[in-house]
């Protein structure tokens, strides 16, 4: 029970308080402790990426095992993951690895590694295209659902119209100092409200961090017993 529940909270509490105190002590001893903890965080977080990979692989393997509909697509995920990792680890990340250059003499140290081919010509087009779909959705939403249904929504749409037109070269064409108006809106009223929201959000983040250190907040350890 101690290992499972209280030890993690003790570790979090100890290092949390230690790093807060360290901030206030400029003494060289505290600075070396600070450097050591930073190195440790870097090395330990090298393994946290495994968590993301493990949870995705587990999600898709269970989908295949249970033959959930659409399990073929999970197969594609696992196969493409395996191949890309294999190419990347053996073939080198940005420059072809020595092993690859021995295997296939065509690869010089200056040529792009196989992994970069999959990145530049498969991941980049797909990922940027998925997000460019949003322009289409916004166009149809602009027509069908963005309505001035209340005073607030009207204020929002009016400001949006001014900023949209003002921020484009055509805007200056229509009215000479349109950009100045837009810049003023962004610099004063918009900035004030964004700061108000930011102060609220920051207070929330700090409160959550304090609860984690004091051991009141346990959700980050994941559910279960």
């Amino acid at each position: 029970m101690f290992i499972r529940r209280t030890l993690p909270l003790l570790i979090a509490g100890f290092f949390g308080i230690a790093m807060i105190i360290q901030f206030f002590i400029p003494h060289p001893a505290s600075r070396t402790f600070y450097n050591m903890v930073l190195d440790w965080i870097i090395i330990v977080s090298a393994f946290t990426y495994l968590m993301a990979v493990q949870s995705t692989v587990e999600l898709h393997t269970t989908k295949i095992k249970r033959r959930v509909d659409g399990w073929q697509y999970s197969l594609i995920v696992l196969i493409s993951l395996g191949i890309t990792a294999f190419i990347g680890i053996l073939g080198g990340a940005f420059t072809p690895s020595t092993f690859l250059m021995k295997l296939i003499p065509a690869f010089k140290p200056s040529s792009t590694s196989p992994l970069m081919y999959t990145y530049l010509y498969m991941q980049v087009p797909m990922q940027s295209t998925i997000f460019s779909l949003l322009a289409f959705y916004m166009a149809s939403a602009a027509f069908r659902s963005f309505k001035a249904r209340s005073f607030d929504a009207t204020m929002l749409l009016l400001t949006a119209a001014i900023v949209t037109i003002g921020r484009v070269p055509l805007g200056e064409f229509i009215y000479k100092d349109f950009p100045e108006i837009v810049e003023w809106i962004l610099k004063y009223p918009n900035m004030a409200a964004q700061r108000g929201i930011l102060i609220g959000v920051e207070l929330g983040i700090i409160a959550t961090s304090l609860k984690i250190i004091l051991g009141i907040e346990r959700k980050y350890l994941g559910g279960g017993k």
Partner: protein
Amino acid sequence: MAISTNIWIWIAALLTLAIYSFLYKDNPFYKFAEYLLVGISIGYGVSIYWHNTIITKVYNPLVHEKDFLVIIPLILGLLMFSRFFKSYSHLSRMPIAFIVGAGTGLSIPSSFEFLFKQVQGTMPASLDVGNLIIIVGVITTLVYFFFSMEHKGFVGKVSRIGITFIMIAFGAAFGYTIMARISLLIGRIQFLLSDWLGIIK
């Protein structure tokens, strides 16, 4: 009209069209491209991790520079592997607790200072129209998000002004977001028209 002959440009173009087919209807081509993307991006991440992190930060110090202080975080990190075995998965809580604990400890003093810089920015030395709007805007927005008093009477009016400021801010963000989404589309059209089909320069 120089259609590109590079096989890789063709692969990229076909995958782009596979994703755009989602606009017409959700179809197997889109699903294939989307799940392929998930697999490739994680495979890419693992390779970068392997070369840039595990080799440089763990393997080299241990094997070449004989810096054995690395052992302690190494053991803590290896505990992460316990997630693969159901019965020992709770052991992975130790490294998570260390990172989250130390991370939050580092963030609290600096976040407070970040917050103070914002509050100090709202205390200008001189008073002109712009500064007045900033101070009034910040106060009214904060009052709108104040939950310990009923929003009636004077406080109600102040929070009414606050929500108007918030709507102007959201309007500005909204106008800017339109610009962002279109730029993404322009980027892809540029790729299809010039790199692939060679219609434009």
